[in-house]
């Protein structure tokens, strides 16, 4: 989805050919979103099929040299994309959410330890992102910094969610450990 609109946005500026589009796309996205040239050609073919871009001239069969430009229909679709908010496609279907849900249900999995292992891994990731942020130049590397912020805040949100799971489980455990009638703690829990 993003590659499709990314290429449209680049072609909206000037006609271009596949290899240029690949390098420009990677530069725009902070130098860290690698796409392969095959993906560029497949995407362009679909855009052409849908009438959103057209090929200039006819260097038949030679993918590398063929230049493309955006059509009015392509321009309209790009504008619509920028004007509309992005809505998440499938919430809560990621592996981590499912793992935690299953661990809670399983009963014999140490959920607290699982959450802490995940928290540590996420913080370590966050530390690595932050090191790169600390080294980046706030003026020259704006695209890169915006991308890093996206990754950082997503990871931070994941950690907050882990903390919330943890707090929920703790409050359940402490409610279970303090029954309304005191003084019946002979058996070990």
């Amino acid at each position, binding site marked *: *989805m993003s590659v499709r609109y990314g290429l449209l946005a680049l072609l909206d500026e000037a006609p271009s050919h596949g290899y240029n589009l690949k390098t420009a796309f990677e530069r725009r996205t902070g130098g*860290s979103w690698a796409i392969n040239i095959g993906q560029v050609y497949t995407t362009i073919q679909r855009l052409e099929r849908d009438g959103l871009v057209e090929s200039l001239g006819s260097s038949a069969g030679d993918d590398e040299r063929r230049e493309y430009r955006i059509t009015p229909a392509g321009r309209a679709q790009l504008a619509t994309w920028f004007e509309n908010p992005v809505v998440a496609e499938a919430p809560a279907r990621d592996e981590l959410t499912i793992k935690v849900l299953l661990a809670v249900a399983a009963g014999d999995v140490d959920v607290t330890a699982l959450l802490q292992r995940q*928290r540590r*891994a996420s913080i370590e990731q*966050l*530390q*690595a*992102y932050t090191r*790169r942020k600390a080294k980046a130049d706030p003026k020259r590397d704006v695209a890169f910094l915006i991308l890093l912020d996206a990754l950082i805040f997503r990871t931070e949100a994941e950690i*907050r969610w882990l903390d919330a799971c943890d707090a929920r489980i703790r409050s359940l455990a402490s409610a279970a450990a303090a029954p309304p009638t005191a003084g019946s703690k002979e058996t070990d829990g």
Partner: protein
Amino acid sequence: MTTLVELDGAARWFGAGHTQVTALHPTSLTVGAGELLAVMGPSGSGKTTLLSLVGGLDKPSAGRVVVDGQDVGSLKPRELAILRRRTVGYVFQDLNLLAGLTARENVAIPLELDGRSIGEARAAANAALESVGLASLGDRFPDDLSGGEQQRVAIARALVGGRRILLADEPTGALDSMTGESVMRLLRAHCDNGGTAILVTHDAAHAAWADRVVFLRDGRLVDEAHPAPNPELATTAP
């Protein structure tokens, strides 16, 4: 790496017998020069207790706390006061800036208490304010500064006079993300220049500026994080 802070089986409990609360179980930890350490953990897990021990605001019930080579538990009140004025700076959660004093006067307090001349204290306060990017706001009163600026005054006061160990208890709590980031850049710079900082925070994005993150839970250190070696940025496009 020179060790600036060491906890050696340090513990702190309150009360006795049946009502005793153990805020910190015996804990060992060292923090070196140049290191930024973050402490995370749920509320009530002992973070403030640990920081107060390092800052000499409190003494361990057992074990030792050694700060810049001095065993904090065995210092006399006068020696502790000197340690706090010359070596360890503390940024409190609620900042503790004095409303009736200007930013510069607030920053100069530790040096004046330490018996330096007014001129000397003033010059050092100006230098500290400059290091936190507030050179032009020295004459303002705390109420006329934004939250982020007050925060930086509190940091300048904690660092004034070249104190090497900075302790901060949730200093970025109420700051927006860019302001919080600028505070973290200050702490990072302090450590990159050979200082040490211990930051208590519940904010993972701020903790991530640290070289090491330790996790407290029910008064015990339970885990430790170090930066991942190869950060995966947005991978290949879907």
